């Protein structure tokens, strides 16, 4: 009898440990990095100019998962991320995803334009200002990157350089969430053809 009790207790322990191990896997970890829907705050809207002088309004991206990246040409860690974002734009754009770069360069397009051209940036970039930075908490260091869900809410924030896989997992998670919960309902697509440097 005692033997049976120990055996049952051992089995329960194994079951609990197994569940914990499963829950510590990467999907759960991604969920932890991405805020729960109820905790997400709306991303402050702004209108800034792109390289062609056209207005880019953040709210026009509603319906898409958006990687909003504050960066500058003088920022070394930002430079590392650019090829990742080019890859994400190419890989996920048909699944309702867009990268929007906000440059904080004081001299604007004078520095940014040749920089984007040299790196063949395929996503849209606008020139930011202090007012927009203040809306996003000051953006006191770069890179600072916000991932927005399809409803235009801030799902995660990263200050400083993180790994490509962190972004990739979060993007995948947000794109999958959309498919399961909103079922690809009506969206206001940004008429933002990528091509920041074009």
């Amino acid at each position, binding site marked *: 009898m005692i033997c049976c009790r120990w055996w049952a207790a051992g089995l329960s322990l194994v079951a609990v440990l197994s569940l914990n191990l499963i829950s510590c896997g990467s999907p759960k970890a991604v969920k932890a990095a991405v805020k729960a829907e109820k905790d997400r705050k709306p991303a402050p809207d702004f209108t800034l100019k792109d390289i062609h002088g056209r207005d880019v309004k953040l709210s026009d991206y509603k319906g898409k998962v958006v990687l909003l990246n504050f960066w500058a040409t003088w920022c070394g860690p930002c430079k590392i991320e650019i090829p990742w974002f080019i890859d994400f734009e190419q890989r996920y754009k048909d699944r309702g995803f867009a990268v929007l770069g906000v440059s904080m360069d004081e001299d604007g397009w004078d*520095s940014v334009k040749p920089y984007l051209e040299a790196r063949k940036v395929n996503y849209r970039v606008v020139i930011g200002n202090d007012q927009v930075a203040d809306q996003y908490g000051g953006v006191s*260091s770069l890179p600072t990157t916000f991932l927005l869900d399809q409803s235009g809410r801030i799902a995660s924030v990263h200050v400083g350089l993180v790994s490509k896989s962190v972004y990739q997992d979060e993007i995948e998670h947000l794109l999958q969430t959309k498919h399961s919960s909103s079922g690809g309902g009506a969206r206001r697509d940004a008429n933002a053809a990528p091509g920041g440097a074009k």
Partner: protein
Amino acid sequence: MQTPPLVAQSSSVLTVVPPPKLTAKKNSTASAKLSVRLRNGFHVNSNTPSDEYLIPLRLTWTAAPLEVVDVTYPDPKLEKYEFSEKPLSVFTGDFDLMTKFRVPATAPAGMQVITGRLRYQACNQKECLPPKTLEVKLPVDIVN
């Protein structure tokens, strides 16, 4: 003229130690040392950065009635960071900047305060802070 209070001019990561009074003789040269303290883990680009987009550290002066002969920066370190493919030309830790001034014969004798501006841009391994300009006051006693 009153000497400005000896309070270090600083930002969150970089501090300039207030320079002591410089005594400068008319019709000669005098050198002032500016000591800079950078927070551990941070670097600033040197005056000759490795990449054209990086913002150099630069010290400039509104020196009248003195004239700036030259500003001497320390030898930069070449350091490799997680985010850079090649080593970067940087300053880290504590370092000094030397400025050589010429005092014209016509400069008025007595106390003056001249103003320097130190422009820099700091980063650590993961993130960069926006470029900043710190103002530095240098008391100068011009003597005959």
